[in-house]
């Protein structure tokens, strides 16, 4: 009875299968495609150099970075992460099938990590690939593409952890998640630097700014915190999800 199953892979596959629905992936890919079209139109337009914080910045890079920050890091990344991560355990809980994972000799942490990994695996190509292509299409250069990929990946780690927990805590995870993304991150966190540090978006923008070497506004976090904090947030959120899963009632 002491054996505890190493079951991450089957659970990973299960959550992956449950998440990849045509409607869900199709809608988010369509959103990514919109980003590519807008990026291409920005690239096609004549961009003049900008004077930002006393520094002359290439017009294409500046326009591209602002687009990635506004569309990618503020909308596409958090919404995609919310859709997949909140559903990873939340859907199983709501359907009443979580019992078929819970009543097995499988460590709760393994279930949670597998579910989060599945969400990340689906969300990453849906988010990062179109966003990287859109960044390239703006004509901002390789630095912008690298910054976009890095920032989106780091943000996705944090959001996946946070929304995985949210999916298990509340049945209205989409509503609460959207409120967090648009009200807290989009509005409250822009009011002061201290509040900004409580928003994943701030760290993601700081990564983009640092890697692409473009002075975006609201990038108040220096390295290495801009890298470490979002990953730590994701890890702590998963630890909380594990704790919650072990202690909650299962239908």
């Amino acid at each position, binding site marked *: *009875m002491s054996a*505890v199953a190493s079951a991450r892979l*089957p659970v990973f596959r299960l959550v992956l*299968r449950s998440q990849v629905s045509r409607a869900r992936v199709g809608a988010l890919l369509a959103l990514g495609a919109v980003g590519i079209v807008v990026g291409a139109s920005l690239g096609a337009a004549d961009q003049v150099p900008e004077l930002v914080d006393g520094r002359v910045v290439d017009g294409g890079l500046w326009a591209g970075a602002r687009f990635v920050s506004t569309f990618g890091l503020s909308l596409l990344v958090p919404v995609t992460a919310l859709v997949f991560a909140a559903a990873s355990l939340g859907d199983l809980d709501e359907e*009443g*099938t979580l*019992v*078929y994972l819970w*009543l097995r*000799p499988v460590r709760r942490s393994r279930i949670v990590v597998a579910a989060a990994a599945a969400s990340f695996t689906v969300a990453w190509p849906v988010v990062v690939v179109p966003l990287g292509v859109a960044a390239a299409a703006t004509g901002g250069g390789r630095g912008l593409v690298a910054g976009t990929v890095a920032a989106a990946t780091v943000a996705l780690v944090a959001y996946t952890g946070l929304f995985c927990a949210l999916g298990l805590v509340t049945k209205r995870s989409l509503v609460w998640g959207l409120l967090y993304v648009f009200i807290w991150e989009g509005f409250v966190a822009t009011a002061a630097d201290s509040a900004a540090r409580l928003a994943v978006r701030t760290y993601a923008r700081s990564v983009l700014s640092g890697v692409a070497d473009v002075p975006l506004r609201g990038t108040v976090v220096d390295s290495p915190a801009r890298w470490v904090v979002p990953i730590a947030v994701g890890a702590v959120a998963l630890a909380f999800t594990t704790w919650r899963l072990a202690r909650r009632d299962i239908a």
Partner: protein
Amino acid sequence: MTSLVEVDEVSKWFGELVAVSEVSFAVGPGVTALLGPNGAGKSTVLRMLCGLTPPSKGEVRVLGGDPRRDLALSANIGLVPQQEALFEGYSAYGFVHLAAVLLRVADPDRATRAALELVELDPDDRRGVGTYSKGMRQRVKVAQALVNDPTVVVLDEPLTGLDPRQRLHLISLFQRLGEDGRCVIVSSHVLDEVERFGSRVLVMAQGRLAAEGDYRAIRELMDDRPHRVRVRCDDPRMLAAGLLGANGVVGLQLVGTDGVVIETLDAAALRRRVALAAQRADLRLHEVTPLDDDLESVFRYLVERR
């Protein structure tokens, strides 16, 4: 009897709702039926046995361990939950195979095929369980619960949605498991179903353990209670007068202009007496209806008499 499952003074409440109140029992090998109406607290008790929800008070021990805390214990508990949902994208084979893998069964393929054949499902049927009928889904749930041959099998209304032949098949399967030394706990709200298990019965009503014993003892207990019968006829006063003082009649109440409700300890004998009294008084009987033969009233009686 060796107790494999022990429930000691267990209560469970959800906010202000008391779902289970001070329930104690011990269960050993064999089939034990948990009988009670909907909302009696049966599912909550079964969920506590599996560790899915902790007791608010008291203690639950399964195979000597705490099912809520002892993770490895779950490999020895097979559960058929009440809810219908399964992993919709999976075939029956895939669903049961996943359970076998997570339960670390030595040969998951063989165990999966054996479990599906046990419930008369085709292991090679590649259709998704989403296309299955209610009865087939129920059998998939039973197969996943038995795939690793657990010591304790907990079945929450497992016969729901099954056709009569499948019901008989599963009842005999559960009986076999019990005879083989497994501890099989089956919940049901259908008295006849429990009779077929021929097992020990725990009767639950309003969150309490109302009675326990073998099926025959419970049946007798239920038959010994007072029964109420409503009779409609031309002249209920005359009929009531004819029944006054009759053996087994413990109460009479006139209802409306054409009815009388008779309370008796022997419903079968009363019917004969009513017919005789009506014949003697030359009355025409319009209706003779037992008022409390439904299971709810039986359970209510059992709770009130404790």
